[in-house]
């Protein structure tokens, strides 16, 4: 009278234990799908984390529209657009990397991952240029705001949000670069195959999310009217 009978699970006897399969999963597919759900749940938390900032930005924007519009003119939309393109292309190379992994092409995989890594680096370089320009002009968040000659008061708040949002995004780019570097290293060691490429897929998802957030940041920050 029990809820279960037990069946000896035979899979482990029938075939060799696939590389990369953790002990508590029954097979590769269960492992892959579980980690995929886990990854998506994590992405949802990321969306809500950034979302909180977007909500704060939206509400403060609606309270002080003049200040926000005046402040955004200090940003250079050309650099923003450049970075948008850079991230979009990096997303493309990332997804190509996933494809290369799915089809078991190790060389291409490494190539695409490296390109993605370099594009991420390029993004950070542009960000660095933008930031140093802002620092120079005294366009700093909160009480450090020291820009001279403003006609509309309250612009410091725009820059509070600018630095918090792009800063948090920048941290995510850096973390993404670490993850991609780790993938390159593992790919070189030959860990991935068309049977096992979960980590590439997961990092890919993360990277696209970073791109997705920027897609919203760009018009909201650089192109206000």
């Amino acid at each position: 009278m029990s809820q279960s009978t037990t069946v000896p699970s035979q899979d482990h006897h029938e075939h060799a234990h696939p590389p990369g399969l953790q002990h508590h999963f029954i097979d590769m597919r269960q492992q892959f799908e579980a980690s995929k759900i886990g990854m998506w749940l994590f992405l949802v938390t990321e969306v809500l984390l950034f979302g909180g900032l977007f909500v704060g930005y939206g509400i403060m924007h609606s309270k002080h529209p003049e200040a926000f519009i005046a402040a955004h003119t200090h940003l250079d939309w050309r650099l923003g657009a450049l970075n948008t393109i850079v991230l979009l292309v990096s997303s493309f190379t990332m997804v190509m990397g996933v494809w290369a992994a799915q089809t078991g092409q190790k060389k291409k995989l490494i190539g695409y991952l490296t390109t993605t890594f370099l594009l991420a680096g390029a993004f950070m370089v542009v960000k660095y240029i933008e930031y140093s320009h802002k620092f120079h002009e005294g366009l700093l968040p909160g009480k450090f705001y020291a820009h001279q000659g403003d006609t509309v008061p309250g612009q410091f708040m725009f820059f509070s949000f600018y630095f918090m949002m792009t800063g948090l995004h920048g941290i995510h780019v850096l973390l993404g670069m670490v993850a991609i570097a780790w993938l390159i290293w593992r790919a070189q060691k030959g860990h991935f195959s068309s049977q096992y490429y979960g980590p590439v897929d997961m990092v890919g998802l993360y990277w696209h999310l970073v791109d997705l957030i920027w897609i919203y940041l760009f018009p909201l920050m650089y192109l206000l009217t």
Partner: protein
Amino acid sequence: MASENVMHANGHGAGAHADYLDSTKGLWSWLTTVDHKRIGLMYLWSVVFFMITGGLLALLIRLELLTPGPTIMDAELYNRAFTLHGAIMTFLVIIPGIPAALGNFILPLLLGAKDVAFPRLNLTSYYIYVVGALMALSTLILGGVDTGWTFYTPYSSTTGGGVSMMVLAAFVLGFSSIFTGVNFIATIHKMRAPGMGWFELPLFAWGMYATALIQILATPVLGITLLLLVMERVLSVGIFDPNLGGDPVLFQHFFWFYSHPAVYIMILPAMAIISEVIPVFSKKTIFGYKAIAFSSVAIALLGFLVWAHHMFTAGMSLFAGAIFSFITFFIAVPSAIKVFNWIATMWRGSISMKAPMIHAINFLLIFTIGGLTGLFLAALSTDVHLHDTYFVVAHFHYVMAGSNMIALLAGLHYWWPKMFGRMYNERMAAIAAALIFIGFNATFLPQFLMGSRGMPRRYYNYLEQFQELHVLSTIGSWILAFGLFMCLAVLLASLRGKKGVASNPWGGKTLEWEALSPPITHNFEDTPVLVHGPYDYRPQPVPVVVEREQGVTH
């Protein structure tokens, strides 16, 4: 044998058939374990430790309130005491309490899985919890925090002390909670035993699922709120500070967007435990399985639409107040369904009044009061009178301390033999349960009355007219403390005995009772396959149709 040729996370396979407590020895093997049962126990002991810390602070608070004016401390110390009490109890005790301690231990066993989906993430989450806890405690050295656990701006953005540290601690603890949630959802989706469809899932798993949904959807917003608060303190970003053009009430929206759903992070796991205990000790099928399962999810989702009922007097707009009040009332319905279904489960059962069942019944009685007093607060006009009085304090202690903590005790007494292979002294446990019930009501029932008569909360000093009720409450807290310590002593005393409890002492029908007591490291010798529903008490259980779920069977 399944486990023969699998890689062992613990590094060797020798202990695979010994129980999880003894499979490997030494402190290090515990600190580096990825076994969900061991992580669950580490969580449990941490939670008990902080429960005692927070409880001792509560006793000091009650002692101070014995007389109006100074009794044993000054106003500043008092403010720090209740802030720390509230912060410890919410962030370190009750939110991780049932999910991370009991849930971690029991959930994979219930599902017939070898572990949670991401064991290493699980351990990470525990260490994040430890780091967060240490950060929270470090505020004691940094000069204390006197904001109240709600951290309302602009007080919190201007007062001194370790506010930033406490806020960052809560931020870090949020990640621990998020990781637990991610782990549980993936586990419930993908790790169920072959044949276990969604409606063969034990209700505890449904409760954990609903809890995890909230953990994932709400906690990140708390994270960003707290970061914004720290930024406000460090940079004066201006979002919450009216002097800089910000809106202090906006902070309250941000805070309660998390913290209201968080109260359901606290009660859903409690309800989940009760849904397991009552059928087992009534030896009868749960009444209205689907209603209970869906009401958990309904509570979780509705819980996101009502947060501003904490802000009816805060200067919100009239319309917003009306909408939030209206939606709040809908949560009473799934809660009512659950309560009545539990009672119906007892009806015509075969009821055995063991310690877990006594706690479960205490839960039912206390939750009825705690929940219904929520209605006073959800109604606009009465909330205007009762907001921020001891009525609110009493309400949330009835649901948090009374319902959640007592459900935790019910679960702990229920699964204790499974966890440790030993049985406690049942008579003593029953006496402790009775003392807890009496002490609890003596402590918090007077607070409803005080609050109705206008005694505000977070008051160090109070008018003479409230003293009698305060004295009553303080004496109650001593009875409560005695009961709780006795309860703990009874449980701990059992650990000195020899292991040797039968694997299924209560006659449970869920999968964890298939495992040995205590279970082996990999839970089951062979992957269990489900043959009947979780609460099927018929003499000849009717086999369920084995559903072939994607990714579960193969």
